């Protein structure tokens, strides 16, 4: 259980209060929270709930499964030699060598594509974990902040209107730092997409004689 898994349930009441204040009382007109809300498209409570539900382990499990499949391709024993001679044998050797290269050769291969896809999904697992850790840090600071105290004090005494402007400011301040984590994570996520390896279908390259069955040479089995 990571820090966010521990913090999110404890922070839920404060996040509800922040959301309620934003939705019912608004925020100071020039506060950066307005722009942050527009860009992120979700409230602080929604962001935290969403991130708390992310399970990087599920993505890591997918990466492991892909690597296991790649290892199976690499261990496949496709016979490269033909235990007979003649035109068909020459064709077989060329075709088997091409098939082996495509499956698990040193260059671009099906095994390499599986490993590249495993790395891609691992990158997302790392991205999710970094997002969870960053959010947990900011959330911990927010929970012990003076703004949290101000907001709670006001909400505990809803009839005392003197404290309202400070509470509105406090809710906006808490919201903007939490939404900032989401914005930064989105930018990092776009970087992951941009840095993704080539995962397109690998074209097959074969170099074969024209007609494998046209040969009329002798067949000699070892």
């Amino acid at each position, binding site marked *: 259980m990571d820090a966010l898994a521990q913090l999110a349930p404890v922070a839920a009441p404060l996040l509800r209060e922040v959301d309620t204040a934003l939705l019912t009382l608004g925020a100071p007109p020039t506060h950066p929270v307005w722009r942050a809300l527009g860009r992120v498209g*979700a409230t602080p409570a929604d962001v935290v709930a969403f991130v708390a539900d992310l399970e990087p382990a*599920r993505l890591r499990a997918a990466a492991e499964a892909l690597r296991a499949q790649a290892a199976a*391709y690499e261990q496949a024993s496709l016979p490269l030699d033909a235990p007979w001679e003649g035109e068909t044998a020459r064709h077989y050797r060329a075709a088997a060598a091409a098939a082996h290269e495509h499956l698990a050769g040193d260059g671009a291969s099906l095994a390499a594509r599986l490993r590249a896809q495993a790395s891609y999904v691992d990158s*997302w697992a790392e991205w999710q974990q970094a997002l969870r850790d960053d959010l947990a840090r900011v959330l911990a600071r927010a929970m012990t902040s003076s703004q949290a105290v101000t907001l709670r004090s006001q909400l505990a005494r809803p009839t005392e209107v003197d404290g309202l402007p400070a509470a509105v400011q406090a809710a906006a301040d808490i919201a903007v730092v939490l939404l900032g984590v*989401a914005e930064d994570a989105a930018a990092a*996520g776009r970087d992951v997409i941009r840095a*993704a390896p080539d995962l397109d279908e690998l074209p097959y390259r074969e170099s074969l004689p024209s007609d494998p*069955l046209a040969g009329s040479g002798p067949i000699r089995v070892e």
Partner: protein
Amino acid sequence: MMLAGTVTAIHATADLLGDAERRLPAVDPGATAFGARGLGLLGEVGQEAYRHWQAAMNARVREARAHAARVRDLAELVDHAAGGFREAQHSAGQIHRTLADEPGVA
């Protein structure tokens, strides 16, 4: 390796690829695991990540299917060679028996 052993080994590789074609879709952790069901900006990032993953997974499945077919073609090639060998062996046996039956031929 004899022809039969070669064919068996080739079929084993084709089966491995066939299994991969069937099993790879089950590796998909789903849209939710990528955060594609989220609201707003983070949901958009999750959707893009998942679209990329799905396209890649479809490519892996197509690769496995196409290569399984190629490898099965290899097995057919060896079968063809084995058929030719059996035919030649049969003919040689017949000639041998014919010659042995002819009087004066040792």
